Structures are given as structure tokens and as C-alpha cells.
């Protein structure tokens, strides 16, 4: 049983790896690099949460 599971595992891994790479290139080509890397640290803390001492 485990041998079959291991073989299925290889197939699933290969499929998911391919999907990730596909989705990755898809994403990279449909968005600007500035948009993708626009996350900033501490932004949400500064904007949404009021900072009181």
C-alpha cells in the first residue's frame, strides 16, 4: 500500500510543483514588479491601529 502511496506522492508533488511554477510566472507577467513588492513593514500598524501612549 505504501509503495502505491509513495508513487502517487511523486505524481502529486510533480503536479503541484508545476502548478506553483506556472502560477508564479503567470503572476509575474500580469502584474508590475512595483505592485508585487509594494508591501511595507509596519504599514498596517501605522494606518489602522491608533497608537496611544
Amino acid at each position: 500500500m505504501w509503495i502505491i502511496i509513495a508513487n502517487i506522492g511523486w505524481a502529486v508533488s510533480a503536479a503541484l510543483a508545476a502548478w506553483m511554477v506556472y502560477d508564479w510566472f503567470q503572476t509575474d507577467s500580469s502584474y508590475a514588479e512595483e505592485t508585487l513588492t509594494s508591501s511595507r513593514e509596519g504599514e498596517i500598524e501605522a494606518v489602522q491601529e491608533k497608537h496611544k501612549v
Partner: protein
Amino acid sequence: MAKATTAGPAPQRVSLLRVLGPAHVWALGVGIVLVGEYTGWNFAADKGGALAALIICWVVGLLYTSVAMIDSEVTSTVAAAGGQYAQAKHIVGPLMAFNVALYLVFAYTMLEVSNAILVADTIKSYAGEGFGDWHYRGVIATVIVVLAALNYRGVLMTLNVNFVITAFAYLAIIVLFFSVQPWSQGTVLKLGEMVTPDNALPYGWIGVIAAFHWGIWYYLGIEGTTQAAEEVRSPSRALPYGTMAGMITLLIGASLTWYVCASLLPWQYLGFTYFPLLDAGKVTGSPFLETLMFTATILAGIASANGCINDAARAFFSLGRDRYLPTWFSAVHPKYRTPYRSIVFLVPIALAFAFIANLGQAITFSILSGVLHYTFMSVNIIMFRNKWPLGTIRRGYTHPFHPIPAVVLFILCVVTFFAIFLGYGAQLTAMVIFYIIMSLWFHFYRYQYVRRGDQFTMPWPKPKGY
């Protein structure tokens, strides 16, 4: 000035998604750590005997309680992905932050590798004839790639899955504990005959010290809860709550695990096996318990690997965001809102090590990175309190008895360095040299690409003394 303060009607930004609650924080922390109960802690018995394993279970528990308290205070104040990395950046300085991020990436990637190997080993021990290297590696690849895809797809689902399998693995320990009639010694459990005055501390007290090395494995990774800081809905509440609850869960789990395993397995075997709980289930003679512990061992390994992928990717992502590494890594997936490039980038590295490295070495690297990290934390909290004394900034949680936890933590770290030295000295020195080389590289070369003032993103006043 930092861009953070000019936000508002700024162009649309893609950031990580704030969807997690305290239960997810618990699942992330305990999920990573619980595998330590299923494998690893028992090597403490190897280094010092069964009694040593119990002593360090509690003493190292104290170390981690200090870690959790300190961490909760700093993290509930510095809520950013990368956790201790962002703390180091705001409190100690950029080079320290770079090192902390490396500790994190290493500790978690190597832990992920160990988990994948553990799952494959467990299955192999039951698979029988015909289960060759190809199949063994198939299991490793499945664990790493499937979990990476889960992480890629979104953090909420990732940690929901972790919550379920972690809870299962934890309940399995409790079921095992109550099935062996812990209230009546002699029926199933024979602690008095397994651990005798003769063999309790076979190496004497030096063995207890040496056992600190593996004692770390009882709890290693609980500090990973902070990596979720940018994704929890209310960091200042959920992080201390989830971390402390996780620590209590683990202290109970570790004590039960020791009690059952030490009462069922001869200490030399305990120090030798890779699956103490599974073996304990096996010697009860109950097929149900054996199957339960088999399943739970695998699930604990999966939960841990899952959490590790999450944390390592967050730390790597933060490095890119501050230009400590190329900014390319700091991309967030516009749809899934995950640090997708970091997740994918770490997959081949994890696979390579899981296929070729040995388990003991991967674990030791992970432990060592962890201890370097805790040493930093003990100094960090003292600097934090000095630069921003209580009352100058809003803290989500303030830990009691300062500076006692910091001092306790520091002393225990020094002891642990010595413990690793006993038996693994050369490897320890080699790894620290690696960190030195990386530090020199960063300080004298890479740092030129980093924007100075932008690194400080918290809306705090100027630190005292600058």
C-alpha cells in the same frame, strides 16, 4: 522619511492578509514544536539518562517560558512579519537583524527537513519489502512540495489544517497516557524498574548538562508564533495569548510524554529510537494504540513542516523587503496574499537537504540556530526596556519580573552552548564560523544596498540615549 507614514491615499499596495486569530497562533506554535515529543527529546536520555531527560524537560521548560514571556512583550509591540527579525532591527541594529533572520530561516528549514525525513522513516519502518529509496524520497518530496503548495495558496487554510492535525497529535498523547493506567504503576507502566537509582543518571550530573542539547527539542520553535504578526487580526492580543497557551500545552504534553515513555522503554532504547511515542504505543500490545501513535507521529511531522515553511518564508520575505537580500524576494502574491517567491525558493533547498543530509546534523543545525537566537533575545529585551522604558510606548503585553526572565534565559543559553560542546563541539564551532562569514559579508558589502532610515518603521519616539 519612511514611506510608512505617507500611506493613506497612496497607490494600492499588496500586503499579507490579516485573517488569523489566537487559535491559529496556537496551531502555528504548537504545530511546529509538537513533533519534538514524537522524536528528538528522547536523545536527551541518550546523553544523560532517563532522569536527566525529565530534569531538562522542566529546566528547559523554564528557558522557554522566559522566551515566551519576553517574546510576547516585544512582539505585541513590534508586530511585523519576520518576528524577531523586525525586533532586532528596531532594537539592536541591522547586522543583528540579518543574523536573526538567518537563524530563523535555518532553524525552520532544517526543522522542516528533519520532519520530512521523520515522516519518511516512520512510513519506511512499516512499509515492508520493496519500499526502496525511490519511494522513501517520494514521501519526502510529497511532504515538502504539497505543504509548500498549501502555503502558497493561502495562510488561513494552511493554519486551519495545522490546527486540526496538531490537535489530533496532541490528543493522541493524552489518549495514550490514559490508556496505560497512569494511576497504577506496575500494571502497564513500570517506572521503578525502568529507571532505577543505578541507571537514572548513568553519566552523573555532567550528563544532565549534556542533555540540555536535546532538551531544546522539547520546545524548539514555539517562538515561531511571532512570524504571523502581520497576518493576525489583533497582534497585541492574539500573539501573547496564543504563545502562552501554546507553552502551557507543551509543558503538559512533554511531562506526559516523558512519564509514559520512561515507564515503558529501557533508557538505552529510549535514547536510540527515532519514535519514542510510537514505540511506547507498540509495547502496550494494543493495535489501536500502535496505529494511533503511528498516525500521530506522521501528522506531527506534517504539522511541524507546514509551520516551518510558513515561518521560514516569512523571515526570508522580510529580508528581501528591507533589501538585506534582493527585493525580488519580498513579492506578495496579489491573489493569495502570500510571500510566494520565498516559499517557492526554499522548496529546492529543503528538498536537497532532505535527500542528502543526515537527520542528526539537520537537527543539530536547527538547535544551534535556535540557541544563538535565544541568546540574542535575552540581551534584546534588556535593550528594549532601556531604550524605551515602560510608559514611553504602547505595549500590548508587559512581562513580569523583569529582568529575571532575561537573566535566566541568558544563563540557560550559556549552559546549552556547553551542552552542545559536549559531544558536538567541532560542529558547533564550524556553524558559528559560518555565521561570522555571513556577518562580514553583510556588514562590509551587502549593507551598502540598504536604505538607512527606512528600516525603522515603528511609529515610536526616538530611543533613549541616541
